[in-house]
């Protein structure tokens, strides 16, 4: 199993550009999440999904959109990139029924908006 795979690992965007961060998991997990991690700050939840076709907002959803058309994929879309979106983005997944609530994280996507 590859686990949770994120692409790209690094990206530089200009202000106002758009892009999609890709996330795929091969563990057949129902739950998937997008977090951002700023230096010296905790992980902040952007969006999450409890299954294909179902998404919900987290703490910091503004400026982002998500979709979940399959169990495996959970892309994060940035529209009109702003410098405040410079961050490291982590995708995570969780197995339904896991009594530890363990999150499996990808390796992260480092985004810089200039």
């Amino acid at each position, binding site marked *: 199993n590859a686990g*949770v795979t994120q692409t790209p690992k690094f990206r530089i965007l200009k202000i106002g550009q758009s892009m999609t961060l890709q996330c795929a998991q091969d563990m057949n997990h129902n*739950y998937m*999440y997008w*977090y951002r991690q700023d230096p*010296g*700050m*905790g*992980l*902040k*939840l952007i969006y*999450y999904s*409890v299954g294909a076709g179902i998404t*919900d907002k987290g*703490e910091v959803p503004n400026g982002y959109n998500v979709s979940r058309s399959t169990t495996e994929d959970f892309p994060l879309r940035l529209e009109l990139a702003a410098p405040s979106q410079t961050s490291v983005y*982590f995708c*995570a997944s*969780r197995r339904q029924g896991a*009594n*530890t*609530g*363990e*999150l*499996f*994280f*990808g*390796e*992260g996507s480092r985004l810089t908006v200039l």
Partner: protein
Amino acid sequence: SQKIEQNSEALNIQEGKTATLTCNYTNYSPAYLQWYRQDPGRGPVFLLLIRENEKEKRKERLKVTFDTTLKQSLFHITASQPADSATYLCALAPLYNFNKFYFGSGTKLNVKP
């Protein structure tokens, strides 16, 4: 929302000693508290979960305590090794909602040989 405090200063200890990291929280009392390890440039890796009705949980050289009166969790690594050097994050969630984990900013642990 939940406010979670972890010591932002790095903890430096000697190999073989016990490392103790602190996670303090305010507002509501979480039902679940997790600890993760994060290495530079990598995603967090799950270590342990402790529930509000559990005072202590152990896993190999790791021990976690959960004091709902003090609103604090302590994370201990006994017989620490240089390979334990990493940032350790705590995460809290309310009852019946693993979708709402709030993360602390983490404490960096440096274990010197």
